[in-house]
């Protein structure tokens, strides 16, 4: 059926997984069908990076892309989206650069609430296990970034209290 046709059209496609590891961590992983040195190259050369970082299907246009990939070096990406009046800039600096296995960078567009991103490229035969780990300074920063509610814990605590109160009244 559909699945069969898809896998025929793209037999090399691997699965992308996203997991919220903790209150402050988000992890994305996927197998890439190329050795780490090639994946690292595609991640660190601006002319290659800009060909995949902005998927065509998301309606974003990349206006500029500067990557100074060395420890302390800065990157800056500027996008335009039809729904946003002003272009959006994403920027930060590289904290660790270990070719071809590891990159760490900051995300500074949200000020102090930005996450620190660690990408590792692990050799798996002639393929690469890519793991991207985002560590946010607080649960609230991750929630704000994801558009989900602030203060979920508070609400759940209040729900607990409410239910405890109700069952106490019944007994």
């Amino acid at each position, binding site marked *: 059926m559909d699945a069969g046709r898809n896998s025929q059209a793209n037999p*090399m496609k691997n699965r*992308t*997984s996203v997991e919220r590891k903790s209150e402050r961590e988000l992890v*994305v992983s996927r197998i890439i069908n190329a050795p780490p040195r090639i994946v690292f190259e595609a991640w660190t050369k601006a002319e290659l990076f800009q060909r995949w970082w902005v*998927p065509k299907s*998301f309606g974003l246009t990349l206006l500029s892309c500067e990557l100074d990939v060395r420890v302390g070096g800065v990157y800056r990406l500027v996008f335009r989206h039809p729904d946003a009046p002003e272009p959006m800039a994403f920027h930060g600096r590289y904290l660790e650069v270990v070719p071809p296995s590891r990159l760490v960078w900051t995300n500074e567009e949200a000020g102090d609430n930005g996450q620190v991103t660690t990408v590792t490229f692990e050799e798996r035969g002639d393929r690469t296990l890519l793991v991207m780990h985002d560590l946010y300074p607080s649960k609230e920063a991750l929630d704000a970034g994801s558009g*989900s*509610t602030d203060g979920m814990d508070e609400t759940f605590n209040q729900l607990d209290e409410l239910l405890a109160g*109700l069952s106490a009244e019944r007994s």
Partner: protein
Amino acid sequence: MTLTGMKKHVGVLEQAGLVTTEKVGRVRTCRLGLRRLEEEVMWIESYRQLWDARFDELDEVVEELKRKERVDGRRKK
């Protein structure tokens, strides 16, 4: 728990989308609403789709680099 305290709690839950309430006569019935949890699940799925789309295009870039490497390798021999 006092009735006033209870009303306050339900109000907070309602605002957060965790419960919905319906008043019939003197009785207000509360139901659990899962809107916020659904939002988080939906957000994670849309984030996964973004990365899936990125990786699909990354696949194309690395295939091209692999082809190039093979051609360059043959030239060097």
